[in-house]
């Protein structure tokens, strides 16, 4: 009943020694975590700027990845263009495949089923997020790939005249198409949980009003929920994109890494920065290691931008609905 909000306390007390110790432990624990994380972020930047000075800006635009050879007198050459482009192609395709599933899942869970079934399905969806990536990768490699190659062959047969569906050689295994199907499944949980959250806050009175005006359920969703939840959908998809860009092992298993800029999504050749790093890191010499670190920085900046965009959009969505 009191309308004055209690003000923030300022504690300037002389506390007992045990409290000082407690305060110290909490602060030290928290600060040590901060410091370590901050240092790590800083170090990554520091090291990578060195690398960029070594390789120059060509690093971004060149697609050759060659550690060089002393016998053949080949100079080492490192460029991340093919891998970067590959990362973007695979992730974008995953987004395109995931979009109808994300929208469908979110609307279905929020507006078409009973509470009990929803609880079960949401649990399954959350559980999907907890399944290790390697499982998805293995599934993609062992189970999905034979089918997907077959589908890809059909697409190529009938739509091969469209440049992106053309192939140079008739090998459809381990293509960007396969990898993006696996990624699609992997980003579904995070993307649909954010989207569902925003859809669920659609103004009930407007939905009721739409019903009152004679709209069907789909009509009400189209008129009220979809426009309202657009930013949630975009934000959720962007978060998924951030995850897809960073995915390592599942892509490593389902994509054949080739160091050439290509747009043929059905061909058994593609690029991916995260997989490149994981696959080369073990055998890399000092110079290549530097190049891999720089590739890591490029990926870092890319995902940071995507996630930053996502958090702004999601933040705006949740603010405007409160």
């Amino acid at each position, binding site marked *: 009943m009191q309308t004055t909000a209690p003000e923030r306390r300022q504690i300037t007390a002389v506390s007992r020694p045990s409290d000082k110790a407690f305060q110290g432990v909490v602060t030290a624990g*928290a600060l040590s975590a901060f410091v370590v994380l901050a240092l790590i972020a800083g170090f990554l930047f520091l090291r990578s700027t060195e690398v960029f000075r070594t390789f120059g800006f060509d690093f971004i635009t060149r697609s050759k990845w060659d550690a060089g050879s002393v016998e053949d007198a080949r100079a080492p050459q490192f460029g991340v263009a093919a891998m970067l482009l590959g990362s973007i192609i695979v992730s974008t395709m995953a987004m395109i495949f995931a979009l109808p599933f994300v929208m469908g899942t979110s609307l279905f869970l929020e507006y*078409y*089923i009973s509470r009990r079934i929803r609880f079960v399905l949401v649990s399954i969806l959350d559980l999907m997020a*907890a399944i290790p990536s390697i*499982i998805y990768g293995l599934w993609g490699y062992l189970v999905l790939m034979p089918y997907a190659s077959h589908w890809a062959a059909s697409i190529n047969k009938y739509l091969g005249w469209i440049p992106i569906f053309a192939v140079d050689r008739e090998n459809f295994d381990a293509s960007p198409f396969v990898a993006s199907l696996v990624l699609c499944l992997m980003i579904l949980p995070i993307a649909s949980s954010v989207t569902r959250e925003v859809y669920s806050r659609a103004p009930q009175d407007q939905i009721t009003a739409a019903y009152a005006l004679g709209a069907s359920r789909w009509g009400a969703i189209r008129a009220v929920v979809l426009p309202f939840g657009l930013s949630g959908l975009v934000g959720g998809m962007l978060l998924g994109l951030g995850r897809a860009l960073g995915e390592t092992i599942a892509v490593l298993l389902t994509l054949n890494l080739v160091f050439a800029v290509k747009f043929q999504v059905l061909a058994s050749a593609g690029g991916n920065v995260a997989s490149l790093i994981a696959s080369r890191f073990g055998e890399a010499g000092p110079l290549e290691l530097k190049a891999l670190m720089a590739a890591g920085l490029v990926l870092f900046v890319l995902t940071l931008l995507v996630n930053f965009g996502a958090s702004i959009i999601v933040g705006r969505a949740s603010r405007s609905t409160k």
Partner: protein
Amino acid sequence: MKPRVSPSLKIVAAVAALFVALPLVSIFVRVPWSDLGDMLSQKSTRDALLISLQTSIIAALLSCLFGVPLAWFLARSATRGLSVLRVICITPMVLPPVVGGIALLTAFGRQGILGQYLYDWFNVSLPFTRTAVVMAQVFVAMPFLVLAVEAAFRQSDQGLEDAARTMGASPSRVFFTIALPAARPAIIAGIALAWARSLGEFGASITFAGSFPGRTQTLPMAVYELVSIDYRLSLVLSLVLIFISVGVLAAMRDRWMTGQ
């Protein structure tokens, strides 16, 4: 307002559930059940399993040990610049794991910015050890715990803490007797989440710790290496991985859900 569920929608729901469970189901179907015992008793399999269990459990406990004070600090401190600190803390969550591994290497590697002093002064070299596996896992998994627990601290009733203070309880007593019990479900959920992340972690560990059988090779790394050599064995290992991660999470689903 909630519509009644028609049978056709139930079928759709069942199909949807099946679709998301597809990877699990198909792996179950393909596992060579008859040779399961033999395969699991192989030394390489056992090693990977033990390393995974050991590192992921330590990583989850460490995440809890450091993460809970961090969450409390983020939730209750009035320090300026707290939002910056929160961003720093969440960054590993959105960081591609391989980048996290590289970052750890630049910091703690033998030529790393801290690592060179560790090596020069204490003759300690962290990369490519089991400690490195744990560090990589904590780095990737802890933010999930921090966020879950911080939300719980934030939602918990500060009035109760105030009341406890007026009754004579010191801040530390309030933390242990009032705030901690209130956040317990979230802490358990956070540990489970961190543990699941640690168990499935691949990118950061392989860059920072490498994949040395018997030393740093965890289950996911073993599965990856075995795919091209003996895919049946890799299926068996995946089965173990699924069983421990999903099985345990599903068993404690109720707590885990309320913590979200």
